[in-house]
């Protein structure tokens, strides 16, 4: 082993970090080489001057107490933070769960129970019908049995021309018409009479081009029939029995 190599390894040797073979090689070299032996001695001297307690800084006692109390504080805040997080997690989970239940219930509930657009509209129509009956003249703005009087009356008042027919020969006589506000728009309301019953027929353009079959419902003792044809929505409502109201509905549909 060269002196150069030996002195490179001296630190590892002094520190006990060499493997056994290397360690023996260095030891052997030191024994036979005065220069490297001195280098070795100077290292051990230096090391021994660093040894001993005198250079070691021991922590003051108050530091341990200080650290322990700050650790306790930290541990406490960690726990309360965790508890806080957990609390919010619980709240969030409950909300999500409730939402889920809501969606599931909504899906499971039969359509008939759920208020649909039609349901709300039917309610609106019943209210309109009732209101019109409470008023004198049943709120007919154009009183005429003549369709050729009633129909032109709507001109300029609506953005569509409602079909107006008289069915006096079938004992459904046209009494007149008025404007009504329904389904967020102005619609035509035609009033027909059958014996002492009144029928309100609401008409407005449909967004759907096709025709749908009749849908019948009953509300607050009134019969309602709804259908769509020729791009128009029709709602007929009356306290007339449903058979006769159907008869009326068929007349309207055929009359177009």
């Amino acid at each position, binding site marked *: 082993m060269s002196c150069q190599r030996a002195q*490179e390894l001296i*630190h*590892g040797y002094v*520190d006990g970090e060499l493997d056994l073979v290397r360690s023996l090689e260095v030891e052997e070299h030191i024994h036979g080489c005065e220069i*490297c032996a*001195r*280098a070795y001695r100077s290292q051990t001297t230096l090391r021994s001057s660093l040894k001993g307690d005198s*250079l070691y800084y021991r*922590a003051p006692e108050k530091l341990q107490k200080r650290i322990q109390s700050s650790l306790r504080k930290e541990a406490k805040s960690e726990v309360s933070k965790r508890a806080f997080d957990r609390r919010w997690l619980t709240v969030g989970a409950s909300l999500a769960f409730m939402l889920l239940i809501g969606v599931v219930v909504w899906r499971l509930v039969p359509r008939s129970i759920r208020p649909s657009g039609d349901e709300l509209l039917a309610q609106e129509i019943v209210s309109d019908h009732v209101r019109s009956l409470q008023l004198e003249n049943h709120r007919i703005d154009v009183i005429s049995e003549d369709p050729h009087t009633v129909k032109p009356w709507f001109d300029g008042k609506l953005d569509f021309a409602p079909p107006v027919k008289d069915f006096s020969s079938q004992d459904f006589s046209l009494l007149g018409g008025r404007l009504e506000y329904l389904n967020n728009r102005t619609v035509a309301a035609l009033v027909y009479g059958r014996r002492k019953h009144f029928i309100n027929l609401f008409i407005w353009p449909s967004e759907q081009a096709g025709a749908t079959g009749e849908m019948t419902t009953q509300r607050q003792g009134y019969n309602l029939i709804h259908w769509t044809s020729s791009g128009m929505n029709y709602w007929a409502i009356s306290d007339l029995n449903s058979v006769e109201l159907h008869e009326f509905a068929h007349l309207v549909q055929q009359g177009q």
Partner: protein
Amino acid sequence: MQKQNKLATFEEAVLPHLDAAYNLAHWLTRNDTDAEDVVQEAYLRAFKFFGGFHGADGRSWLLAIVRNTCYTWMQHNRSPELSVPLDDELHEIESKDLNPEALLVQRADTLMVRQALEELPVEFREVLVLRELEEMSYRDIASITDLPLGTVMSRLARGRKRLQQALTNHMHAEVLS
């Protein structure tokens, strides 16, 4: 309950190394108050990250945190110490020059050694403190300082060299005065 467990486990694993933490912090900051502050902060950090500690060697783990805390602290509170120039190979392994001084070093007293060690650049100081005062293995020093093993070895060799020279200079000055 969880709080008690974590705190108790932490204190058991890490608190016994308070002296080692303080010693390293003191040698790096060279100041009582700073060392105390740094150690306290390091303990809090260690506690926060205690979940990531799975090893058996609490001392090395803690000392790595203390060292990092020291460096962060020094960056914020002091102008950076002069780093060691890369061509610091002056007088490297020139045993003939050294040998006569070995005897002088032997007579250096504690105060002188302390002063000489304190004056070493921090890169050498830390490996010497870990090796000589904490008696840690090269491997542990490498893991604490996050340096390759070879760098640890060369820094130790160069640090000792500088320390010897510093002590010799002190002794010469003493003799002359």
